[in-house]
């Protein structure tokens, strides 16, 4: 089985995240960059499939030079090899332009049976990549999987929603995006860390993918950021004075917020 796992290096959610004033894209210099945690769960799921049977796990990312740190982490967890699409022209790509790049890059890996991804990155939060990729590749996409089994050419997933659990099933090849509850990702072992630097990483530009600069990046994106404003500071909140009816007041507030 041939598995591709999509990963993304994102600004650490603990650090201050900013957009740059110039082209209104992520200001990468302003924050620490880490492998998005949901991607670790996607890698973990691929490694579980690999350990249960026989699979080759390829990491795929599109990002600048420093995305190699995120690739190395995924490789140190146990993935076999990586493809890094690194091209200035991609800078500023929206979700659809990114999906085009990734779909082409998946095509370079060979006969892929399964593409695994996180359901939503902590930075862009479009949550659409798995669906878009499925569309571009012509494969089914099972999104928000909290449980996944792959056997006999079929992927079965469970998706939990507020209404209940959906059982999803598709024949391979397929795209699956995983949710927070799917697993607990392993820590990379020292042996894994030391082995990672010897694993092959193929670096590709968009020309290698048969794409033109006009199809990607800010120029090739349908979504443009016109302006942005920082989130307003947290307000003081609402104080409930307990005059013997504190519980009822809190319940009233929660009902008002549609939380209960």
């Amino acid at each position, binding site marked *: 089985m041939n598995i591709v796992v999509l990963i993304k290096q994102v600004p650490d959610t603990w650090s201050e995240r900013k957009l740059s004033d110039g082209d209104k894209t992520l200001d990468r210099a302003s924050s620490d960059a880490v492998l998005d945690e949901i991607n670790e769960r996607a890698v973990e799921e691929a490694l579980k499939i690999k350990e249960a049977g026989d699979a080759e796990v390829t990491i795929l990312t599109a990002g600048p030079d420093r995305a190699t*740190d995120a690739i*190395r*982490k995924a490789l*140190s967890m146990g993935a076999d090899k990586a493809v890094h699409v690194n091209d200035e022209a991609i800078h500023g790509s929206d979700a659809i332009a990114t999906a085009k790049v990734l779909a082409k890059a998946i095509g370079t890996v060979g006969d892929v049976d399964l593409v695994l991804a996180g359901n939503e990155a902590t930075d862009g939060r479009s949550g659409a990549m798995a669906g878009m990729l499925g569309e571009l590749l012509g494969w089914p996409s099972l999104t928000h999987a909290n449980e996944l089994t792959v056997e006999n050419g079929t992927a079965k997933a469970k998706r939990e929603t507020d209404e209940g659990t959906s059982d999803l099933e598709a024949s391979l090849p397929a795209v699956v995006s995983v949710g927070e509850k799917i697993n607990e990702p392993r*820590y*990379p*072992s*020292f*042996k894994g*860390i*030391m082995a*990672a*630097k010897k694993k092959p990483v193929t670096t590709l530009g968009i020309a290698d993918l048969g794409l033109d600069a006009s199809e990607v990046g800010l120029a090739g994106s349908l979504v443009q950021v016109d302006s942005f404003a920082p989130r307003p500071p947290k307000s003081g909140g609402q104080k409930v004075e307990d005059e013997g009816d504190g519980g009822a007041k809190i319940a009233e507030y929660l009902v008002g917020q549609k939380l209960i």
Partner: protein
Amino acid sequence: MAPDPSDFLAVDAELTAEERDIRDAVRDYASAELAPRISEWYESNTLPRDIAKGLGSLGLLGMHLEGYGCAGTNATSYGLACRELEAVDSGLRSFVSVQGSLAMFAIHRWGSEAHKQEWLPRMATGEALGCFGLTEADAGSDPGSMRTRARHDGDDWVLDGAKMWITNGTLAEVAVVWAQTDPDQGSKGIRGFVVPTDTPGFTANEVKHKLSLRASLTAELVLEGVRLPADAVFPEVTGLKGPLSCLNEARYGILWGAVGAARACYEAALAYAMSREQFGRPIAGFQLTQRKLAEMVVAVNQASLTAARIGRLKDAHELHPAQVSFGKMANVHAALDVARTARTVLGGNGITLEYPVFRHMTNLETVLTYEGTEEMHTLSIGQALTGLPAFR
């Protein structure tokens, strides 16, 4: 760009990508899996054995040894792991030091092939734990005066005596025990033995009522007619060279670990000073507090630089034991000073288990003494400078 308060001189910028990955792996593991439970372990004077499996699967146990299931990292990586573990608690670093630098290193360096095959792979995973018996109640800085005896009886060896202050003694499946085989030869008669702890006559008694290193189990080992086969002895080493080579490894880990403890205390003090308000403003804004913060950050970064330099010397196989003494003496001393200063910044809160500072401070009193007292390391440096041993 403003200096990072956690690494003011960007000492870690000199690390390789692989070393940084190992540092991050230990830091992530320790903060998620160990830090949340450390106060509870400390208060109840326990350390659950099951932490060994997690540490083993990460590759921490015997990480700088080659082969036999060990990760085979460089010395700098091992130092970084000690630093990040001791940033949580000295007891955790002690656990790893004893397993990797004392018990496993002794077997790896001095054991027969059969010893290595039997013990090292299981010790690397954490399935088997080891301890190291050199110190006795009446033989500390002067281990040559030990009274534990090993006598020949036919082909067998029979060991009698007692060892004191043995970390992990009550948990261990195997003890590396150093014993006098021939008192007429003085310290040259000392040899090392691989002792399975289920051998009849071997007992380990926990040392209770410790006020320091409470998230670590300490034992007295009692050996009463412990009968071992002829091949239980380390085949090729006699004299104090054997045990001292192991201590040198452990001291190396400690000089890194102390940086972690110091950093944790300083960071706790900085965070506290920023949020604690008196006279209508954060105490971090007062000059006396800023002096403390500045002195602490200098001490932490100097210790960090010392460790980094000694790591590079070790990786180049150019490290002299007196340089390890330099690091152990300087860094533990610095860490203790930082801990005491940090405690004053935290005021009354500084003496509670809610903050890490007092726990580190009491731990460091042990760290100052074990693996060569501050006094002995001073004399080791003195001897290296003058050629004159002041302790004999």
